[in-house]
């Protein structure tokens, strides 16, 4: 077995797909570093999310390998050999599956290295990451079996498209079924119940085994118990849905840096606090921001803070650190944010433009001369205007804001 396995790993389709798969997965995660960098749950969830793009490629590679014997005219010769069809299939399947796993492990390790170097909170949720690996095996298994049963050249690309569409629909189904998708899309503030990740992994593995057992010559019924196990695992996952997740309460606790204003981040991002606080306090210096500026938190049971004043969106750059430019931008916009529904609106163009100009000034603190709403003002006068404007904006007092802008320096 080891010798045949070695030959398949060296000469099968898998080795040719390993590099493209790794690059595709790496590009996917590099395109969305804010979703995962610097946060262990973000890391694990994004491994699952990235399967929406990675999974169809795995399925296609496996389908190509599955159809190889037939395309090469080897079916008759191989079936004249005594080795059972299932062990033949298993060895052949190992090629795309092992190399897809290698791609996943490579990228996951690089992501983990980035995350580990930028967070001191929490530990890698290994079981969640393993559920991503189990999903990859399942996808490879399904692809291989479909390729074996429909060994045409068109099977692999068509199957890839079908899996992409199917997985996207399932992932964003807005029901308990979405948690069955390999490409799970969750925020890092969600913590699954202890049973969830093992059950998810078991479901994928059972489904993969069931698919492979369909190739057991004369013993296809073996697939039924495996499929039954997959269904048994799927039922609690789908029926529990989001209720299987709780907020990461320990991770969401705030750690604050004193100053003007006080800046608070969650424990998950506490390592970033000195750098973030320095940036936020530089932007908001002298603006008398009421209360602390707090990192925006997302998770089940937590209040929706989207658009709330004094909350901070903490992006992350490719190094896993908070993206200080995003922080600077967000802090400046919060400084003059309007506390009323739907404002600034298109009908309030002049106020809208002025709001952006004042936010830009707070962010950059440029030297005079100024244009627009701050034309003819000194830095002290600009600061004073912004403070008063911020007060009017926080009370949704449009008339007061217009009056301020109309007042000469």
């Amino acid at each position, binding site marked *: 077995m080891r010798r045949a396995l070695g*030959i398949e790993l060296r000469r099968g389709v898998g080795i040719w797909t390993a590099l493209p798969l790794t690059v595709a997965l790496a590009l996917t995660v590099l395109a969305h570093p804010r979703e995962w960098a610097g946060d262990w749950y973000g890391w694990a969830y994004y491994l699952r999310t990235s399967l929406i793009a990675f999974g169809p490629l795995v399925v296609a590679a496996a389908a190509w390998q599955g159809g190889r014997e037939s395309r090469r005219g080897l079916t008759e010769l191989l079936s*004249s*050999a*005594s080795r059972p069809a299932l062990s033949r299939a298993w060895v052949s399947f190992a090629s795309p599956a092992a190399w897809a796993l290698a791609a996943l492990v490579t990228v996951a390790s690089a992501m983990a290295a980035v995350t580990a170097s930028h967070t001191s909170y929490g530990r890698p949720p290994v079981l969640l990451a393993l559920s991503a690996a189990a999903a990859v095996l399942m996808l490879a298994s399904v692809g291989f079996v479909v390729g074996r049963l429909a060994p045409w050249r068109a099977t692999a690309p068509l199957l890839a498209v079908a899996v992409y569409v199917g997985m996207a629909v399932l992932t964003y189904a807005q029901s308990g079924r979405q948690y069955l998708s390999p490409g799970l899309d969750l925020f890092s503030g969600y913590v699954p119940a202890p049973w969830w990740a093992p059950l998810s992994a078991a479901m994928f593995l059972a489904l993969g085994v069931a698919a492979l057992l369909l190739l057991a010559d004369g013993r296809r019924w073996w697939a039924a118990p495996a499929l039954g196990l997959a269904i048994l695992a799927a039922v609690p996952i789908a029926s529990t849905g989001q209720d299987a997740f709780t907020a990461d309460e320990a991770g969401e606790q705030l750690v604050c840096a004193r100053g003007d204003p006080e800046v608070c981040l969650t424990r998950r991002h506490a390592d970033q606090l000195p750098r973030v606080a320095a940036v936020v306090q530089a932007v908001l210096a002298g603006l008398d921001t009421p209360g602390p500026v707090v990192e925006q938190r997302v998770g089940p049971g937590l209040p929706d803070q989207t658009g709330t004043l004094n909350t901070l969106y903490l992006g992350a750059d490719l190094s896993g650190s908070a993206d200080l430019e995003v922080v600077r931008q967000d802090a400046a916009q919060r400084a003059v944010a309007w506390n009323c529904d739907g404002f600034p609106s298109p009908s309030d163009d002049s106020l809208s433009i002025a709001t952006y100009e004042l936010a830009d000034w707070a962010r950059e603190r440029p030297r005079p001369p100024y244009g627009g709403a701050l034309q003819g003002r000194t830095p002290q006068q600009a600061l004073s205007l912004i403070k008063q404007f911020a007060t009017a904006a926080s009370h949704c007092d449009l008339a007061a804001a217009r009056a301020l802008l109309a007042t000469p320096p």
Partner: protein
Amino acid sequence: MTVRVEDLVVAYRRSRVLDGLDLSLDRGVHGLLGPNGAGKTTLVRVLATVLQAAGGTVRLLGQDVSVREGRTHVRRRLGYLPQQLGYFPGFTVREFVEYMAWLKEVPAARVPGAVDEALERVDLTARAGSRMRTLSGGMLRRAGIAQAIVNDPDLLLLDEPTAGLDPEQRVGFRTLLRELGASATVLVSTHLVEDVASACTGVVLLDAGRVVFTGSAEELAAAGEGGEGDTASERGYLALLRGART
């Protein structure tokens, strides 16, 4: 008897390709002759256990191949070279033969030696590290023979094994056949009557899905005295066919 076939029927759709065929073979090299469409390849495929009979009984190496266990037993002791040899182009010759040895459940410890021996017997040792896609037609045929004999089979089925071989290789192949026939039952399906005449101890002549002659190569040659054909074997072949059809 290594091969005992009784009243074998194989049908494709409504047409009977093999129609009540009886055949018994024992150790030695047997040539399977017949015109196109006589059912040679179909018979070889049935004996290779890749095609199921619609009727009759097939016992190989003492096993009933209609039963799973019997089939598995036979496959372990079987060597088969199909008419169209498929291969994985990226495999080296050694890997291809090793892979087939694994599929035939050759014990792991014996595989390296068995592969070396098979490659040596078909004179491919020097090309063992070459990729299959780089081989000429004749070399591919020899690689096919190597995989067929890697498990030291008791029953060896070769469908058109000399197709693509040059004269020197064919002479070498006939010598190999004689060696193999000393310890195994070898059935060689071919169009080349001279291969049969020079390498086979027995001859089976098929026509229209039935066996019309079984005997020795000498008996085949003797059957055609005074008839048409360039060699005695060809004359015998043509005479027997003509006789079967009248």
